[in-house]
């Protein structure tokens, strides 16, 4: 069961971040040429791969209780950040992510349309930074999720599948993927990261979860329920404030 959730979490987190990265890469491709956009993407992906390869085995060597406490705490902070953002968006307190609007903004910032066969320095920097920063969270999730269960490869497969999916769809549509239910995915990933974080941090501190591994399902259900209740409450407040 843990393996399935591991792959799903890595896949969903990667999908959300790669859709955001694709928007930036498309904007650079359209304005500064595809050579610039694709070479920057390839360089950023190589750096991310190097981070996973370097830190994955290193983290796996830590004693399991220490690893679970540290990774659990970090996943908790990350998961709560994702949940917070997704809840604020779902309840109307924060604008939903609009890939079309971001795409137009990036195109404008890069100085309008007009492609070139040569690599453009500014375009390269924008695309490289976009892919690297969006990908760093994915790399972190893959390394920590994978290392805690000694399954970095499995987590990497989940993340890699999402990258391939986004790249293939991006090649065909050549437009920002505005129809991906990004906030819902962000909510699911937030619930999973927070739940795994609670479970592992608890185990790292020596807590005995009732039902052992099965407690994870209960924690996921609890975090999802709390999130739904918070959305409902904030929606009411949002309407009152409007």
């Amino acid at each position, binding site marked *: 069961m843990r393996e399935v959730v591991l792959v799903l979490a890595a896949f969903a987190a990667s999908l959300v971040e790669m859709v955001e990265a694709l928007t930036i890469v498309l904007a650079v491709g359209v304005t500064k040429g595809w050579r610039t956009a694709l070479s920057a993407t390839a360089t950023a992906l190589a750096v991310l791969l190097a981070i996973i390869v370097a830190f994955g085995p290193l983290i796996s060597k830590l004693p399991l209780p220490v690893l679970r406490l540290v990774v659990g705490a970090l996943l908790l902070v990350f998961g709560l950040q994702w949940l917070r953002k997704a809840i604020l968006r779902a309840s109307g307190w924060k604008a939903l992510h609009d890939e079309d609007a971001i795409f137009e903004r990036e195109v404008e910032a890069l100085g309008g349309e007009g492609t070139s066969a040569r690599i453009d320095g500014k375009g390269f920097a924008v695309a490289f930074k976009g892919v690297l920063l969006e990908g760093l969270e994915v790399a972190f999730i893959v390394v920590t999720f994978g290392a805690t269960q000694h399954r970095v490869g499995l987590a990497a497969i989940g993340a890699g599948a999402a990258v391939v999916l986004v790249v293939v769809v991006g090649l065909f549509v050549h437009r920002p993927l505005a129809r991906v239910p990004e906030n819902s995915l962000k909510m699911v990933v937030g619930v999973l990261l927070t739940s795994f974080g609670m479970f592992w941090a608890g185990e790292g501190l020596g807590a005995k979860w009732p039902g052992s591994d099965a407690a994870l399902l209960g924690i996921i259900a609890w975090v999802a329920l709390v999130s739904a209740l918070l959305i409902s409450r904030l929606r009411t*407040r949002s309407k009152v*404030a409007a």
Partner: protein
Amino acid sequence: MTSPKRPWLLRIVDAIVDFVVGDDWLLAVGVIVVLCITALVGRAVGSWWVLVVGVPIVLFVSLMRATRSHPS
């Protein structure tokens, strides 16, 4: 936000802190507090419930702060 005048090492530290802490520092501090309480309680009785109760409270407080400081 990082200033371009800061030394590169400090800028890297800034970026790492920004990456881990994110939009609301209260979440990171809240998680540390909940984990410390879990560790302290765990010495006496079962402690899993501290996480189950404490983590939603941290999220709730952070959301209340966000909606108070950014009324739409």
